[in-house]
């Protein structure tokens, strides 16, 4: 197993508040890693730092893909981070609500295309070909994720579970090697959660992406992840396999509080 994303002592301050305090993490190739922790532990901030929405105060984020040089992604703009191969979904669904499902995925393809203004106006052969390919690729992605029945539906009319999956489809369209899922199962019913479970495993096996997910559904986390990181108050308090985490006293304390003799 090779490490493909390495995060070293990531720190993020908002004014006087330290939202992340020297967090280390590494993700290996083809691994599903979960990041858990009570509300307000800094999980989403952690995501926002990695994907460039916030610029971290301190720390290093390094990606090393096989066959490519190691790159630091600190301080890159979100679109450049995505171009480097880290794609994310959002905790509160952020689809392009008034665009169709297909178009949503096509936006994901944007950074892998190159046609410009002149191409758009003159519609030369390269542009037409590229557009055609974007449509086809997007459709294939939708088919894989199981959304092809909704292709031309406007995104906001989709059922909740499908919207969540569309976010994943859109992120997959950017051809990531690490997929960051922010609470993908939030608000889903058990049936949808099971489907999501299958989907995530399938993405890992078929598309060869590593997955980092934030999730509160412990059943999903325990069955899915190879390793788990636990955060509380901006600090990493534990890491290990699901079994190790289940029995870790620090984790139990963070979630349930301390046992007192009273």
């Amino acid at each position, binding site marked *: 197993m090779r490490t493909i994303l390495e995060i070293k002592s990531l720190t993020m301050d908002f004014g006087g508040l330290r939202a992340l305090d020297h967090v280390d993490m590494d993700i290996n190739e083809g691994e599903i890693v979960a990041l858990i922790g009570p509300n307000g532990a800094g999980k989403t901030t952690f995501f926002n730092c990695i994907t460039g929405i916030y610029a971290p105060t301190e720390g290093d984020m390094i990606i090393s893909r096989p066959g490519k040089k190691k790159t630091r992604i600190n301080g890159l703009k979100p679109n450049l981070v995505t*171009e480097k191969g880290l*794609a994310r979904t959002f905790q509160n669904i*952020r689809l*392009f609500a008034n665009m169709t499902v297909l178009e949503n995925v096509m936006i994901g393809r944007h950074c892998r295309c190159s046609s410009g203004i002149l191409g758009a106006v003159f519609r030369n052969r390269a542009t037409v070909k590229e557009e055609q390919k974007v449509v086809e690729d997007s459709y294939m992605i939708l088919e894989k994720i199981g959304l092809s029945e909704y*292709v031309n539906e406007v995104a906001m009319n989709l059922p909740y579970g499908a919207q969540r999956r569309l976010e994943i489809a859109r992120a997959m369209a950017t051809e990531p090697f690490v997929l960051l899922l922010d609470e993908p199962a939030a608000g889903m019913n058990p049936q949808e959660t099971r489907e999501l479970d299958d989907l995530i495993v399938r993405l890992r096996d078929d598309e060869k992406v590593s997955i980092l997910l934030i999730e509160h559904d412990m059943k999903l986390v325990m069955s899915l992840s190879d390793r788990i990181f636990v955060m509380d108050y901006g600090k990493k308090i534990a890491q290990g396999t699901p079994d190790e985490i289940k029995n870790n006293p620090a984790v139990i304390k963070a979630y349930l509080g301390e046992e007192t003799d009273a």
Partner: protein
Amino acid sequence: MFLTFPIMVIRVNTVENVVEWRWNNMIIIGAGSFFLSFVWRYLLKKKETGNQKAKPVETDRVPLSQRLFEDHKIYIPAAIAIAVFAVIFPFVFSMYQTNIMITALIYVTIALGLNIVVGLAGLLDLGYVAFYAVGAYSYALLNYHYGLGFWTVLPIGAGLAALFGIILGFPVLRLRGDYLAIVTLGFGEIIRLVLENWNEFSFGPSGIANIPRPGFFGIDFSLRGATIYIYFLMIGLTLFTVFVVNRLQDSRIGRAWVALREDEVACQAMGIDKTKTKLTAFALGATWAGMGGVVFAAKTTFINPASFTIWESINILCIVVLGGMGSIIGVIIGAFVLILLPEYLRAFSEYRILLFGAVLVLMMVFRPGGIISNVRRTYKFEGLKNKTEMS
């Protein structure tokens, strides 16, 4: 009813110092508002039931306007009829009518430009008229100082306007919504005030006169001939605009604009360069205003800063909003309605603005999407076609 009381019922005759009580008016207003409230409620009710009915079948029903454009039986004869009408128009109608039509066409062009910025990219721009002014003044000044002709300045004016679009674009990259609107408003005013006060540069409020009309291989036209020439020129420019804007909208860049409008954060997270996308929207939007401005200067042969006030920006914005944001056909219809109606309603000129306001309010309540608002559905068809081709 009571609010109108002082205006409509009491009239003070200042000459004879008597107060007239016009009770008749009060009855009319009472009856009128009573009736209007019924209409209002009926429309509201209809809207609600309409929404309920429309929801379940919406998925497989194509909207009427869509059908109109897809169905060649209707579409082709309609297009031919419009084309024929457009061609014979200046020969059949008077020069006054032709001039009005030219104005309307100029507004179509610049409104389509604003449509890129507001309708597609969702950046509320209240200073759009500044680019119009840039176009107009670049023709007037370049002609005055260097004797450059219309056809040379048309691209230069467009380019300069695009440049100004980028200049405006840079500082407002981080802004959105209300803040953006205020800054663009300020920008529009700055341009106008500079033109008004920098006498050495722009001849101040007295403006620039004797701007030549566009030439056609050195032929001199009579006034009527020149008007007709500009008319056809404007038809050509409008068609060109529609063609380009349509293609832009339907491209990778157009999609990025819409995504930017829908959700800026998600848009960036999906790998779209926000800076580049916003700047292209501002620049391309401004380009059309620049061209419109050049034609405007050539048409009126006289320009001064009074033509480029904030009211003008609002007017163009109204065209886009009323017509339907993001919809090309909608914007064209909007431009014709908002420019032609006031011209032909000159008889009621006192009530023009009142009527105008009423129409806007009614539109926003009952059809917030504008006259035609189906951009995404147009896209839908393309997707479907591609899908069937593939499977």
